[in-house]
């Protein structure tokens, strides 16, 4: 279970990335943040964001047509 859950379901681009970024900003190093989104663009956007900002993507899975991304704050 992640330390912080961010619900970005039904939100369109660019909101999933913005919500995740805000949550990571407010988190402490080492904390995990789980983003739940339904925007299909997030499948590409979140891994890209993770790579470029250096906050590793620990887990990614799809459940009930919702996309889950678990990111660890660097």
């Amino acid at each position, binding site marked *: 279970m992640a330390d912080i859950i961010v619900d970005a379901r*039904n*939100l*369109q*681009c*660019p*909101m999933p*990335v*913005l919500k*995740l*970024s*805000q949550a*990571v*900003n407010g988190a402490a190093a080492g904390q995990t943040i789980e983003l739940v989104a339904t925007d299909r663009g997030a499948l590409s956007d979140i891994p890209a*964001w993770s790579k*470029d*900002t*250096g*906050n590793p993507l620990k887990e990614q899975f799809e459940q009930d047509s919702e996309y889950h991304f678990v990111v660890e*704050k*660097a």
Partner: protein
Amino acid sequence: MTDTAHQTGPVAEGTAPEREKMVIIAASGDLDKAWPVLILATTGAAYGMDVTVFFTFWGLGILKKEDAGLTGDDWRQKMLSMFHNASPAKLGLSKLHFAGMGPAMMRGLAEDHNVASVQELLDMAISLGVNLWPCQMTMDLMGLKDEHLIDGLSAPVGAGSAISLMKEASISLFI
């Protein structure tokens, strides 16, 4: 707000962390241009970049208060301010405007599909620390004073400042 979390890559010891820069020149007051300007600006900020948007000519309308009223002293400035669809809620479309029916339909669709409005993205940009630069020359041309523009902006600047920043920026866009 601390942005250190978004430093990209390792920072050499002893040097101040330098964030990558992104500059967008927002020259259009069309709804369909304001949207990508603010989507890219907020996303750049979410990427930890130091983002600046320079609003010039009709683009300045995005920053105008809805109740700014007639601006300027010259009758031509007043005419412009009367007919210019400025402020986030009044922006029109570059195509399929149909006397305002197009933008009304577009806004309705955006709401139905949970696309953030220009106003929401503008608020988000300010809270993410995006640097919003009004063009001083356009303000003078249109008779706009600081009080006609929304809060949260940086001091008005000119083309020189924009060029100086773009020289250093890794992303520069004209929209």
